[in-house]
């Protein structure tokens, strides 16, 4: 009976998330070496039963696949300040790290949130922070705290405060949606009766480029996230697609067919100053800037089969990058500059793979059969991509070492084209 009740409440929670139309992220495979961490509820946290902080921090960390939560119940009194924490008690429960904190209401309605991260093994304090925030900012504050914990314990930047964009298809209705990285707070920014594809965040995260077929052909738009106003960037004769931002946010590379074939062009973000980059007899498309802006990765069938190439902008030299297999497309340069993620086809299966520049070694990260549209988190550690489940499009996540696997569950009929936003500035 109790189990049934539990199942029911879990279902009710899921249903509640579905009712809000948001993605929920589940871990389906962990890293194997998760850091055990005890997250002690903050002092006074129960005063805000619907808007606590530590629950969100714990969910963030757990979802990354790199942490496991250690139960702190039974440790009394609960510590709220670093100096009150008896780290031996937590160590005995297997915790390597502990967070403690407090929430103190201020007369103006805001709340003084303080927290400390402690190393239970070395018995030291790793970080401490205090924020004065309104209750509406609790979620954002929790993500910030999770970012700090993640960075201190893994050495990589946390990406819990970032946003993602994706496209849903419900019947004949397409929506471009922007949500928090945990799927919360989904907001449609474009609604259309014609297909939308290829959303791309500007480097500062204030604009989205995308392709819409609403005018009977692919046209590239750039839309402001602040106002919702948008501008046509490329609407030339033929098809206009595959927008990719330069790291300075001033220009995009797009694929245009205006001069015959699908070819790469640089264009200013306001649609002016279009310049052809290359002339090839075949298809050149799916550009992605390297993080320093000096080169572009792209896919091309100039060699007979679709493969990935690198164009060095200063010299216009083109170098082939992929040699394994006869079908490699959709390159996305890793933000850490070490390599790129792409889609490879092998035995009729489409899978996400990663290649290192230095070793040229390829690692296949996902099983297929129809995986595509990889988008890399700004810390280069996690990749979100589109997959097919039955006849339904879904999103999934995989760590760049292939060990952590996430499933993103959505109530929408079809979800596709994920794009991971930049770190907030």
């Amino acid at each position, binding site marked *: 009976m109790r189990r049934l009740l539990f199942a029911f409440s879990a279902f009710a929670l899921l249903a509640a998330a579905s009712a809000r139309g948001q993605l929920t992220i589940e871990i389906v495979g962990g890293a194997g070496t998760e850091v055990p961490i005890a997250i002690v509820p903050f002092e006074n946290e129960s005063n805000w039963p619907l808007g606590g902080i530590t629950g969100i921090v714990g969910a963030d960390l757990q979802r990354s696949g790199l942490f496991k939560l250690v139960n702190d119940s039974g440790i009394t009194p609960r510590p709220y300040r670093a100096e009150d924490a008896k780290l031996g008690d937590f160590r005995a429960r297997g915790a390597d790290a502990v967070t403690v904190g407090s929430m103190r209401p201020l007369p103006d309605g805001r709340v003084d949130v303080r927290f400390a991260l402690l190393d239970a093994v070395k018995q030291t304090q790793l970080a401490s922070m205090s924020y004065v925030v309104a209750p509406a900012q609790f979620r954002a504050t929790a993500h910030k705290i999770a970012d700090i914990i993640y960075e201190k314990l893994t050495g990589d930047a946390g990406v819990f405060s970032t*946003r993602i964009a994706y496209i849903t298809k419900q019947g004949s*209705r397409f*929506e471009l949606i*922007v949500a928090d990285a945990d799927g919360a707070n989904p*907001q*449609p*920014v*474009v*609604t*259309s*009766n*014609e*297909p939308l*594809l*290829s959303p791309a965040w500007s480097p500062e995260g204030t604009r989205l480029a995308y*392709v819409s*077929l*609403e*005018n*009977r*052909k*692919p046209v590239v*738009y750039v839309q*402001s996230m*602040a*106002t*919702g*106003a948008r*501008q*046509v960037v*490329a*609407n*030339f*004769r*033929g*098809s206009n*697609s*595959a927008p990719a931002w330069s790291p300075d946010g001033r220009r995009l590379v797009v*694929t245009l*067919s*205006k001069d015959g*074939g*699908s070819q790469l062009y640089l264009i200013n973000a306001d*649609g*002016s100053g*279009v310049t052809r980059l290359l002339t090839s007899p075949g298809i050149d*498309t*799916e550009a992605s800037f390297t993080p320093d802006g000096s080169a572009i990765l792209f*896919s091309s069938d100039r060699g007979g089969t*679709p493969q990935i190439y690198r164009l060095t902008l200063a010299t216009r030299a083109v170098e082939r990058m992929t040699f394994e297999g006869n079908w490699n*497309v*959709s390159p996305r340069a890793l933000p850490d500059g070490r390599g790129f993620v792409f*889609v490879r086809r092998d035995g009729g299966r*489409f899978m996400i793979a990663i290649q290192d520049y230095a070793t040229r070694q390829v690692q296949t990260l996902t099983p297929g059969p*129809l995986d*595509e*549209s990889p988008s890399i988190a700004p810390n280069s550690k996690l990749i979100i991509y589109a997959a097919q489940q039955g*006849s339904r499009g879904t999103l999934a996540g995989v760590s760049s070492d292939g060990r952590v696997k996430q499933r993103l569950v959505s109530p929408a009929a079809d979800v*596709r*084209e994920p794009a991971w936003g930049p770190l907030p500035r």
Partner: protein
Amino acid sequence: MRKWIIVAFVLALVAGCKSAEEKAPVEEGAPTATAPAGTPGTTTSGATTPGVSGTASGPYSPAALKDPNSILSKRSIYFDFDEYAIKDQYRPIIEAHAKYLLQGNTDERGTREYNIALGQRRADAVKKMMVLLGAQEIQIETVSFGKEKPRREGHDETSWAENRRVDIVHAGE
């Protein structure tokens, strides 16, 4: 065989209006500086406010050839007694029938953007043959829907075969 009949039909139309093509309006490709946010069927909003819900149907109707309000439904050019000069009033009809759109499509396998390029290539291949057969380059625009607008939604070879396709339509259709 059926494809050839369609091509022949198009070429007959094209050949019939050579005189109109010189001044036929060419889409010059200059990008519009700003687009109205509210193109029919599409709405946009910022990420900080809840989105606005969508509106009516798409911006065009594939039934234009039979829609009496569409210029494409008019297919006859009338003349004065003993004359062969085309009256000004018929010029828009001839122009409308002298512009074609070749829409390339692909099956669902492969990535979205690569399929946009593949569909484009298919449309370009049809255009190339049309030009070889005497059509004028300027009259034909090739575009691609990639795998975005499948005619058959199935995940089997029958559906895929139907979706690997170029459609020949009037530009105003």
